[in-house]
């Protein structure tokens, strides 16, 4: 039980990084990224290809150190975010959603089909884990990874808080609220949006690298469009525009997802596994629609900020 809780907490924290990244793009900047899983996958595969133990049949698998993989994962997903952002950021909101959705589908196809690099449907195994040789048991490693994740999460949360309170972060909100006014003040809406998009993509890539270095293998079936949906559900349920809400949403939604998974596997015979999984998705979909309809602000909505210069 304890070992499962540690595992659960690690996954929630990794998904929490994704949700914070999406909150930066959607909650604070108003960019509809429907391809979250694409950037997550880029980070995951970059890390896997660079750090996995060498094998003759693959181009990659360089066996590089863990930290190199993580940094490179952030760099490639930042680059991908920049390229995609250059083309799509000027589009109207729902076109951006369609375009980013297409990006994620294409990336998944590449992961599935470019076998010499990505291992195809087999995926890649023996991926670099941080300091794994120091631990004898999986539990010991998971416990250490949890500690690492907590430190990382506190750092990211603090850094995002600083960034959003800075003049740069305030311009983001200004553009989201009233683009014309912000542009009239001489702020380039396009540049700020692109910067926020790239920063969010970088964090998504980091989350991908953390995920595969925790699990130890990478498979294209971990990067299906449903992941994008789950991350969105976490953000909307928790409350977009609020980082504490984003983290709470990650916890609540993943608890419902994992809990219903356990329940379904207990109640549904294995021959009906597909139906059981369908029930899980229907539950989370309904939950999300109900939140949208009856509590559109989410569990903790965005806090109203009033300038200190305003006096009654």
């Amino acid at each position, binding site marked *: 039980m304890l070992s499962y809780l540690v595992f659960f907490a690690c996954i929630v924290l990794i998904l929490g990084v994704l949700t914070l990244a999406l909150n930066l793009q959607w909650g604070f900047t108003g960019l509809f990224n429907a391809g979250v899983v694409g950037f997550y996958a880029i980070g995951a595969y970059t890390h896997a290809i660079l750090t996995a133990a060498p094998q003759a049949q693959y181009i990659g698998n360089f066996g590089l150190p863990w930290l190199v993989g993580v940094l490179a994962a952030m760099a490639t997903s930042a680059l991908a975010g920049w390229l995609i952002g250059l083309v799509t950021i000027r589009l109207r909101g729902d076109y951006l959603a369609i375009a980013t959705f297409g990006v994620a589908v294409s990336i998944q196809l590449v992961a599935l089909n470019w076998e010499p690099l990505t291992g195809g449907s087999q995926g890649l195994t023996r991926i670099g884990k941080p300091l794994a040789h120091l631990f004898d048991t999986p539990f010991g490693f998971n416990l250490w990874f949890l500690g690492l994740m907590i430190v990382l999460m506190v750092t990211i949360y603090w850094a995002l808080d600083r960034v959003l309170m800075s003049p740069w972060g305030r311009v983001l909100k200004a553009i989201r609220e009233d683009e014309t006014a912000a542009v009239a003040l001489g702020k380039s809406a396009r540049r700020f949006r692109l910067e926020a998009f790239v920063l969010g993509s970088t964090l998504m890539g980091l989350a991908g690298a953390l995920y595969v270095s925790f699990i130890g293998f990478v498979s294209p079936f971990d990067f299906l469009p449903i992941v994008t949906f789950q991350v969105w559900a976490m953000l909307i349920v928790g409350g977009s525009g609020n980082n504490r809400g984003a983290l709470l949403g990650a916890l609540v939604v993943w608890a419902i997802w994992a809990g219903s998974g356990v329940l379904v596997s207990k109640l549904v015979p294995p021959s009906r596994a597909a139906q059981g999984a369908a029930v899980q998705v*229907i539950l989370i979909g309904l939950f*999300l629609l109900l939140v949208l309809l009856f509590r559109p602000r989410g569990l903790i909505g965005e806090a109203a900020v009033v300038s200190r210069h305003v006096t009654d």
Partner: protein
Amino acid sequence: MIQALADGILTGAIIALGAIGVTFTLAIMRFANFAHSELLTWGAYLALVVVAFAGPGTPTGPLSFGWQLLAAALIAAILTGLAAWAVDLLVFRRLRRQGAMPLTMVFAAFGAALVMRHLIVLVWGHESRYYTRELQMAVELLPGVRVLPDQMFILGLALAAMIALHAFLAWSRTGIAMRAMAESPALAQVCGVEVEAVVRLTWIISGALAAFAGVFVGLTPQLHPEIGFNLLLSLFAAAIFGGTGSLAGAVVGGFLVGLGENLSLLVISPGYKGAMPFLLLLAILILRPQGIFGERK
């Protein structure tokens, strides 16, 4: 090469039918309905229910099915139209009344799509299903170009549906009201167009056409819960290609996307076919975001 052209035209007809609904929701409801592809799936499976009761009918002429399947498609079209309207009543209309942003609607559509698709999985599972087990011989239309008689029939039926819709939009009062809403909802309302009635009709027509598209996909040759979802990007590419709110645009866009997908198979491996509509979409958005028939705002 010519075979790829023929295949492209056939897929194009199906994409066009689906894209008509997408383009109207984009223009009239003002949001990208990610759940539209699931209406195709629902239509296909609703027809399967009717076929399960009535049977696909004895093969007529060179076709692999009889009139019963056409009746099933018609019933499925009506039911899917009503289902599309029901989703609007349950979800989208409530959000509209709350004054939700268009992007909230897109997100709700995401949720609705997941629920709709997995309801199908819940009932029928992931296995492939068939309307009919009849085997069919391809006929050689031109030297080296083989087409199934079913496919020719589908193409004819799809074109007939498009022409009927065009006549309806061009000449009937309700059709003109729909086009007015697509142009400018505020102006249409001032002119006395009943907004809710137009919205209802838009959903029913979109759902019905999507159901036909779904049945056609299922007929050539099988149906599974992802038939709609796999076409999602193609539908959006076609709708945006044609310019939102334009029937002719959606039809032309549909054929171009269908041709693009099939011709690309001559140069790329089939594994990447799913990325083609995305690349086409990206090209359109960069070169001409308002679409070929759209006007620059």
